[in-house]
């Protein structure tokens, strides 16, 4: 039933009569009815609100009537509410007691200042983030000492190795195979102009073994396993599981973090090795089909082009990258607050940050290897 509000102005008083359904479904219409009355300048006349004709009433309607009531009460003599049906009385009384305290005044904030403040906060955060990471390394180092006394950790490491290494093998093989193939195809296409197709083997071999293999695998592991570490630890933090561990006298770093990070440190070199081989295979495959280079020749040239140094340069980086990915993932996980949103945010941050650190680390290694002549 349509809600109604009629106002009739008599000389000595203002009469408002409400009718129909004053319920949540009609909230929009009700507001339109009530708004104009609220906006009118306060009259010195006493007001009478008659709700005898109201058929249905819920909290929304009751609140709007209460709003009218309060408006008149502040502007002049106490208004009267008449014709209240017995079964609405409880609700109206209940609403009368609510929202009595004025809302806390919120200071209007200056946009510019807020932006400056934000910038400062973020800058400070970069520093504290780095310290946080170092602290995580320290905690893991301490826990590592104790872990030697606790052989159960091996079971846990094997369990995580299964997840981050064994189960990751197919996707890593596939992607590195494709990337190896793409590099070879591009090399052949462009080198052909100089008649230097044969050098594609050097390109693929050196690039894959030194840089692409480990970098690609590290980035994939950051996205695949780093994110799941963050989400796992984050939701355990949310549901107080980590606190529960602590109260049992167990150290979360030792029980949760160390096995995960150690598993990653073992997994990344293995995956890098497999990924690099797969990329070389992909390169050779494309060189054969697209460049017309027989596999025997590809292997022969590869033997000349690369040395064990190239392979070492790539594989040495892997455990360090794993350490960084693991440390970032777990420290972001432990930063999760109570909400689902913060879990998502921290997971994203974890992946973005660990990829960034992996690339920075790769740059540092490049300088290092160049200066020792590897």
């Amino acid at each position, binding site marked *: 039933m349509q809600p109604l509000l009629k106002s009739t102005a008599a000389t000595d008083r203002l009469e408002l009569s409400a009718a129909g359904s004053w319920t949540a479904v009609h909230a929009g219409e009700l507001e339109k009815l009530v708004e104009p009355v609220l906006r009118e300048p306060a009259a010195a006349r006493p007001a009478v609100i008659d709700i005898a004709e109201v058929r249905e009433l819920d*909290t929304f309607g009751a609140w709007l009537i209460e709003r009218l009531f309060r408006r008149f009460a502040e502007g002049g003599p106490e208004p009267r509410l008449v014709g209240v049906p017995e079964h609405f009385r409880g609700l109206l009384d209940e609403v009368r007691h609510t929202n009595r305290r004025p809302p806390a005044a919120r200071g209007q904030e200056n946009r510019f200042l807020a932006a400056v403040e934000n910038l400062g906060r973020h800058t400070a955060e970069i520093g504290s983030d780095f310290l946080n990471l170092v602290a995580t390394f320290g905690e893991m180092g301490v826990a590592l000492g104790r872990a030697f006394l606790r052989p159960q950790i091996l079971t846990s490491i094997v369990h995580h190795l299964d997840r981050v290494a064994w189960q990751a093998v197919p996707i890593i093989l596939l992607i590195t195979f494709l990337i190896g193939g793409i590099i070879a195809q591009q090399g052949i296409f462009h080198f052909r102009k100089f008649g230097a197709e044969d050098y594609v083997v050097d390109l693929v071999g050196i690039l894959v073994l030194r840089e692409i293999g480990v970098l690609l695998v590290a980035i994939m592991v950051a996205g695949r396993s780093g994110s799941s570490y963050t989400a796992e630890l984050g939701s355990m933090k949310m549901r107080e599981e980590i606190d529960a561990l602590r109260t049992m006298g167990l150290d979360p770093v030792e029980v949760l973090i160390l096995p995960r990070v150690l598993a990653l440190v073992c997994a990344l070199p293995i995956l890098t090795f497999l990924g690099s081989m797969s990329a070389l295979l992909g390169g050779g495959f494309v060189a054969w089909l697209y460049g017309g280079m027989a596999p025997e020749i590809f292997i022969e040239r590869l033997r000349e082009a690369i040395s064990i140094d190239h392979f070492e340069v790539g594989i040495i980086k892997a455990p360090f990258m794993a350490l960084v990915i693991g440390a970032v993932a777990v420290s972001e996980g432990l930063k999760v607050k109570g909400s689902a949103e913060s879990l998502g945010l921290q997971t994203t941050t974890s992946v973005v940050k660990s990829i960034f650190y992996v690339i920075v680390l790769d740059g540092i290694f490049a300088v290092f290897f160049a200066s020792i002549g590897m």
Partner: protein
Amino acid sequence: MAAPDREPVIRVRDLVVGFGDRVVLDHLSLDVRRGEILGVVGASGGGKSVLLRTIIGLIPKRQGKIEVFGIDLDAATPDETRAIGRRCGILFQQGALFSSLTALQNVQYPMREFLEASEELMTDVALAKLEMVGLTREDAEKFPSELSGGMTKRVALARALALDPEIVFLDEPTSGLDPISAEDFDSLIRTLQQTLGLTVYMNTHDLHTLNSVCDRIAALADGKVVALGDMEAMHACEHPWVHEYFGGKRARAVAHEPEPAAT
């Protein structure tokens, strides 16, 4: 109190629900009448939550018929289903508050989805509801992770009541609360039921709640309703589980408490 023998708002007939080869509800029938507070008891793991979730359509049934407001849920159009959803409020066992919204925003959320009201009105009514369930203005700005167990239940109740529903489903509203908070919560439910004219469907373990708040009690055992009625009916029931539950020392102690003054 509303006359308890008006037409049923929920009618469950011959309901069968199971998971895998385990049948949880076995040809169960139950009516919930308009304006009553129905308490459903049963052993832990006896299927109370499953029955509630099946009625609100979260678990598919194998067999049987469920009517809410006289509408058969299987035959309902999407619009009708949505309208029924709007007229029901649900308090989940774990609260199920949205963790990224404050208490106030949690209560406003269904309003935003279903109503065409102004921001100001929604805020006012949401604050009024939070106050009705006994929370303060400061609590309204808190996130679920900052609320205690009892406060979480209160916010969840306020959210269940956000759209002024006709039926509220409460899944163990007082479990996990200390006895005083539980008693508080009971009288709160009673008051709200009377002022808002609600029909309340409540799963509970709490003998005190059953004794002081519920108009009728349904005892669930072996996947069926084995006893239905008031406390007397429960005591008269021969079923071993019901007998043990209501015949125990604790039950007798509660039954002999003086009735709390009408609220």
